[in-house]
């Protein structure tokens, strides 16, 4: 793990409220695995005080570059979006436990809602090269559908759903998943599902996967302080074999990627 003064190499607005940030950080680029995150200190001073966690969207190991795809939702992300190229940024990472990618099984199904696409992309680039992969992307409107071109050019089959039908099917991403799982069952090909997005979506995805008896990994979010496993602030409720039947695990350490069936939604 490196705590390095990275430099902002570029930063661009992709659609309103969504930015792609590229940092120079050979150390993080080298070590990062899909599903891991970086913990960024937004600015000096005490407001905002805490770091902000962002999934690693993409890395270029040769050039020592790390990309983050983020949405402006509050003060921290707004300040981040105003940072100029060349500015130093204090990044801690790579942190957390990423996706477990098994070599077996009938293909990989990526399910992403909104900004949940961010870590998915790294996953594709890193692990999927050459393998059959399908990505299901959902968002409220056309503007929320990100990275589909990049995924397609990487050889991934992409299906899209928007709430308002402005892009792809009208509906939600779990409709697409349902169709895929149904088709998979008919073909007796059981895929692995990797999902990331809003909690409500993840819960539905988990329920579907359980119904179809398909393994599923979800990437969770929670508020974080340390990012290192020390503060226990990022707890998420998971099943446990001992009474009372549940326990808390740390999104920053045991996660952010969990087996969907472990999570208590």
């Amino acid at each position, binding site marked *: 793990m490196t705590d390095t003064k990275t430099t902002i190499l570029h930063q661009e607005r992709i659609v309103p409220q969504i930015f792609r940030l590229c940092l120079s950080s050979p150390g993080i680029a080298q070590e990062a695995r899909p599903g891991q995150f970086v913990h960024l200190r937004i600015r000096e001073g005490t*407001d*905002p*005080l*805490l770091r902000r966690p962002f999934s690693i969207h993409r890395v270029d190991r040769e050039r020592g570059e790390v990309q983050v795809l983020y949405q402006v939702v509050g003060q921290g992300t707004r300040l981040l979006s105003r940072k100029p190229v060349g500015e130093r940024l204090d990044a801690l990472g790579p942190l957390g436990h990423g996706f477990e990618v098994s070599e077996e099984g009938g293909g990989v199904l990526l399910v992403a809602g909104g900004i949940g696409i961010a870590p998915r992309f790294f996953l594709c680039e890193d692990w999927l090269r050459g393998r059959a992969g399908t990505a299901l992307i959902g968002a409220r409107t056309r503007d929320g559908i990100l990275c589909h071109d990049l995924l397609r050019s990487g050889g991934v089959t992409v299906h899209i759903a928007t709430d308002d039908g402005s892009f792809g099917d009208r509906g939600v991403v779990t409709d697409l998943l349902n169709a895929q799982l149904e088709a998979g069952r008919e073909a007796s090909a059981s895929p692995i599902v990797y999902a990331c997005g809003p909690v409500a979506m993840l819960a539905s995805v988990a329920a579907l996967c359980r119904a179809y008896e398909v393994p599923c990994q979800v990437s969770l979010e929670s*508020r974080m*302080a340390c990012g290192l*496993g020390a*503060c*226990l602030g990022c*707890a998420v409720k998971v099943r446990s074999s001992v009474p009372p039947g549940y326990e808390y695990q740390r999104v920053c350490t045991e996660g952010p990627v969990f087996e969907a069936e472990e999570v208590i939604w």
Partner: protein
Amino acid sequence: MSTVLSKKNVPDLSIEIGPIHLKNPVLAASGTFGYGQEFEAVMDLSRLGGIVTKAITLEPRLGNPPPRIVETASGMLNSIGLANVGVAAFVRDKMPFLRSCGTAVIVNVAGRSMEEYVEVARRLSDCPGIHALEINISCPNVQEGGLAFGADPKVAAAVIGAVRDVTQLPLIAKLTPNVTDIAGIAAAVQEAGADAVSLINTLVGMAIDATRGRPELGGVTGGLSGPAIKPVALAMVWKVAQAVRIPVIGMGGIMNAGDALEFMLAGAVAVQVGTANFVDPTSTIRIVEGLEDTLRERGMGSVKEIIGALEV
């Protein structure tokens, strides 16, 4: 000759907290540094004055429902709720690493009842490698006990007295700021046999999500820490340092060496660093280095020259 000179140039940061000798006055605060191991990858733990562990209770505790933290202006609220592995697992799984860190190990002890404090302390007394116990009579995040023990001088003294009877380990009573008269409580635990007091624990606080009309924390209220509380902590440390003879360990919002100096000037023999570890995991070491630099700049031989040196 050159060794003499260079020796003279390295100021002495060591201090004593009653019977405990520390290589420097900078400790990692309870609950913010896990069991030490979590920070191993980012720093050399042996450079710390000491590590105070997360609160240990008799049985393992799961802690409070999430969300457990929320940021506030220059601070944060937490409602972790004493989540910990329990004393047995702590001694078995966590102490071996802590013992090997090359720094003082202080174990923070909490309980739901007087008996629990006593039993945890008794079990820890048999465990080698522990330098002191910090008796947490001040946690605001548990329903039963915790805060109640530290808010009343008689009860606080009773807990410390009972623990005193079962252990030879130096005892540090950790005080809550959520009281009318913290100096009175400090005096009471001093009489009951505490070797030192540490303060402050977090202030009771709350945050509300105005959009959803709900508390931000699963535990509804939580404990406020970070730079926001520094002025309150400093005033209490100053007050307590004048009211007791035993050493005072100061904390609350310390982010850098300048903050640490303020606490030591106010009378703290040592400081603990909490929330700052989340902002910069190497905060403690930066503070050790900063103190060293300050002493050098001012031509001081020992950090002890600063303790209580405030001119009022």
